[in-house]
């Protein structure tokens, strides 16, 4: 399996003042999708509420992927979750950023020998910022957001362009794990206790 494009990620920089202004607006208001993918989601509510207030930086929660800028992949991704994350990521509108929390996205973490989780998130989704820890504390997550804001302001956070350009690479890795049909089946009936699936 080929490996990712970490070295090539920071290739686009702001060139003129219009780009600078656009990036300035984008970095001052960030909408984070309210989706807790793994056990790192336990550290997201303290970050966004009263004690470690993330709203000072302009960061707000958003309920649908159509309105979100950032998706936080917080922790391990089993195959089932990865399918839904990919579909949610593709529903968001450009420009969009991925923040990966925890050591499970870096090298497998605590579940390094599990048969059902992925070890390296970069092969399946392009990542802008890693925050390590297990789980990272709210101070670490805020530091990650500030660094992400600096990268957006300089024009370096361009993973969404990489996803479009190298879509075949990502799709090949996704299909190797998830089978030919990557999208989940949406025939669940909400009134049955397990969706009828």
């Amino acid at each position, binding site marked *: *399996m080929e*490996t990712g494009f970490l070295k090539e990620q920071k290739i686009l920089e702001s060139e003129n003042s219009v780009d600078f202004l656009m990036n300035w607006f984008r970095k001052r208001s960030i909408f984070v999708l309210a989706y807790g993918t793994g056990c790192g989601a336990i550290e997201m509510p303290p970050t966004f509420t009263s004690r470690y207030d993330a709203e000072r930086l302009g960061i707000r929660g958003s309920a649908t992927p159509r309105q979100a800028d950032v998706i936080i992949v917080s922790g391990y991704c089993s*195959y*089932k979750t990865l*399918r839904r994350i990919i579909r949610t990521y593709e529903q968001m509108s450009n420009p969009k950023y991925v923040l990966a929390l925890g050591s499970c996205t*870096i*090298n*497998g973490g605590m579940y*390094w*020998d*599990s*048969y*059902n989780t*992925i*070890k*390296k998130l970069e*092969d399946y989704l392009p990542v802008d910022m890693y925050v390590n820890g297990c789980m990272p504390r709210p101070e670490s997550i805020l530091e990650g957001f500030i660094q992400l804001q600096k990268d957006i302001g300089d024009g370096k956070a361009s993973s969404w362009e990489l996803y479009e350009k190298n879509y075949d690479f990502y799709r090949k890795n996704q299909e*190797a*794990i*998830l*089978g030919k049909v990557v999208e989940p089946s949406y025939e669940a009936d909400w009134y049955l206790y*397990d969706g009828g*699936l």
Partner: protein
Amino acid sequence: MFDSIKNNFATFDVEVKRDDLYKVEVNKDRVFELIDFIGNNYEYQTLNAITCTDWIEDEHFSITYMLTSLDRKHTFMVQTTINRNKAKIKSLTDRFAQAEIMERDLAEMYGIDFIGNNNLKELSLENWIHTPPLRREFDTLEFVNEHLTFREGRDDNVDTKAEAKRLRALKKAQKEAEKKAKEEANGK
């Protein structure tokens, strides 16, 4: 109670494991009669769990039904053994409704076929085509090394002192090479 069980169902002795836990082992054909017997006569009327243990050396699965009496706060474990290669046993869903999900979990993780349970779909895995993962012949580390890759440059079991010495020597060699190149450029 112990004598009536031992005489009627030809089991081993009923073990008293704790002051709120009994355990008995019985043949596969008489399991459901025994469950009915202790349920009707001795009030063990709640099915708590169905679990399975893989005895790969003795080549059988051992299925345990845990029945609880909520009034007396007492649990009774009923164990049977089934074959390991073509594992099937009759299902308990007509007596206990919660057995449906418990048997679904076991069918997915061990590959046991429960006859009579018509909802044996996948519960936690999705589109799993390899061997059932909780069997002991499934080697998870080999599976992981075959299908997934780790990030390079982060090896385990590296002696930190030796590694630090190596990095320092590398840096020193690099600095000396730069100094030499500068002297040559100045000398020219």
